[in-house]
């Protein structure tokens, strides 16, 4: 909210700035006339005008310069697990820490603002907004095409969308609302979505619908990744995400009576907080190669 408000203030400020100056143009022009009577001066103005308009042309933004010998490529793979096993969709194969038997029909989450941290604490930023759909392998990869050479020993990213991008839906790519990862009554992305079902304490099968998000629960994850050496080469980094850690690492998440949750009620806060804290322990480094 704060970010959005400040954006609006800026826009209004700029508009005022424009109108202030456009109103001033005739005055400036009048003053100029009094200072320049001769044709020579007019010529000078003509030259300056052309410079002025010339300077307005947008410079073609060069792609990030790639000096051979200074960077490599990195693909980050997210493996989606439940209890250490690759998730098989549509099968009630998994048991959380609370003992609930559950299945996954849909698992999607945003991984954004990936940062690689070198051993000397310097950082390389991906500036990415990626939606991971556990069902579609090609979405479970994040590409770094120009990663500066060096040894990286930590990775940091957001599980979710940062406040700069979380307060409007009018965005393209993985943030396009067409992906169904934005709330329709409350502008903001659904950071994480698990839909499926579970067997409740009476033995009946009940729906499980977890839609997690909003600014206060934007989870920042930081992990050691060994010593990942980029040296004019192509590397792969494998990270694991485990649903059973999300439902049972710090806080045990009980599905009974708690199976439909999204950010829409004061009662959702405890659930949001539990997941927020558990997310810190739900990702782990597997290997790099």
């Amino acid at each position: 909210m704060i970010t959005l408000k400040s954006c609006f203030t800026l826009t209004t400020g700029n508009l005022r700035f424009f109108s202030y100056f456009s109103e001033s143009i005739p005055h400036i022009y009048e003053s100029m006339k009094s200072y320049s009577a001769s044709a020579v001066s007019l010529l000078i103005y003509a030259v300056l005008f052309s410079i002025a308009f010339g300077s307005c042309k947008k410079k073609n933004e060069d792609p990030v310069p790639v000096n051979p010998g200074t960077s490599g490529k990195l693909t980050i793979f997210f493996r989606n697990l439940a209890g250490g096993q690759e998730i098989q969709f549509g099968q009630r194969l998994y048991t959380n820490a609370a003992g609930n038997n559950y299945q996954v029909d849909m698992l999607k989450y945003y991984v954004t603002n990936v940062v690689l941290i070198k051993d000397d604490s310097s950082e390389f930023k991906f500036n990415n907004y990626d939606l991971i759909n556990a069902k579609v392998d090609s979405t479970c990869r994040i590409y770094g095409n120009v990663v500066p050479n060096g040894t990286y020993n930590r990775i940091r990213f957001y599980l979710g969308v940062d406040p700069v991008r979380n307060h409007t839906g009018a965005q393209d790519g993985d943030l396009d609302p067409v992906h169904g990862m934005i709330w329709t009554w409350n502008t903001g992305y659904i950071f994480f979505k698990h839909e499926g079902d579970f067997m409740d304490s009476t033995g009946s099968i009940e729906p499980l619908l977890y839609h997690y998000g909003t600014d206060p629960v934007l989870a920042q994850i930081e992990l050691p990744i060994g010593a990942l050496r980029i040296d004019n080469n192509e590397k792969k980094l494998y990270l694991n995400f485990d649903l059973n850690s999300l439902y049972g690492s710090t806080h045990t998440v009980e599905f009974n009576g708690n199976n439909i949750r999204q950010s829409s009620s004061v009662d959702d806060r405890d659930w949001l907080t539990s997941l927020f804290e558990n997310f810190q322990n739900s990702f782990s480094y597997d290997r790099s190669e």
Partner: protein
Amino acid sequence: MRKLLLTALLAGFVIIACKKKEDDVIDPGDGHNHSHYILDIPPGLPAMPIPANNPMTEEGIALGRKLFYDPILSGDNTMACADCHKQHFGFSDSTIQFSIGIDRIPGDRNAMPLFNLGYASNFFWDGGAADLESQVIGPIQNPVEMHEDLANVIQELNAHPEYPELFRKAFGSSTVTTPMIMKAIAQFERTMVSGDSKFDRVRRGLDSFTAQEQRGMDLYADPFKGDCVHCHTMGSTFTDFEFRNTGLDSIAADSGRARITLLASDIGKFKTPSLRNIEVTAPYMHDGRFFTLQEVMDHYNTGFHYPQNLDANLRTSVKGRMTQQDMDDIIAFLKTLTDYNFLTNPAFAKP
């Protein structure tokens, strides 16, 4: 000194030239220049902030207007935005308490009137939509409203004989995307400016209040009588855009703003609506429970409850502080806020 001044002026000119160019020409990169649209804001209303990522163009507004009136945006192509937001009722839904969606299911909040939206920084009764662009996709997808899937709308629009070309004219690409739909409708909605009521004309010295209307305006502002101005600020937008619990129930049936903030202190709070065009936007309140302005006056005079989150202004209001004459006078004043030119402006009608 002269040279210095001249140089300074020229430097200023260089900057202006650049800014001006950037401001006037909207080129999305397709070699097609779009016609920059300058909003005509009546005196008495402030300049409207236009988001940098959605500049107003003639093409964008025309497209947004067509979409606003086109049932193609609903699940079974039977319902347009305009079906629940009718111009003659200030773009609210006539006298219906809860509008009926395509599946014949009523909603649970009263359809809001639409005007002067560019001054608001959030939308819906609970402020859930953080910008006008994002508001657009709420009703389209809501199961009790237009109940449509965005991917389906995109597909239909891309296959349509006219729309791809209209999107190209507005946004430079004939491949329709969700953000383009959102931006076009938001652009059209920003043109719906209402500021030409009798109240405005009196302010401009072009008309005068009757004695009753004048008494009503004084009572509207009187802290011991109407006390309306705390929230419905006098002049301009007639709202402070804040969220308040106005004591409609002792225990709120609708959590209101708390659905967005998840704060218990926001339970039962709803956005202060503008009082412009209030005469034609009945029924009133977030749930449309009051069908007449007299019922609204009765609520604020004697009918309000004392829930925990009751707004401080009401908490200190004395019940029965207004006579029937006072309330009649205030209602007479409120009716001067009806902007007939807005309600009949052909620029906002079905294209």
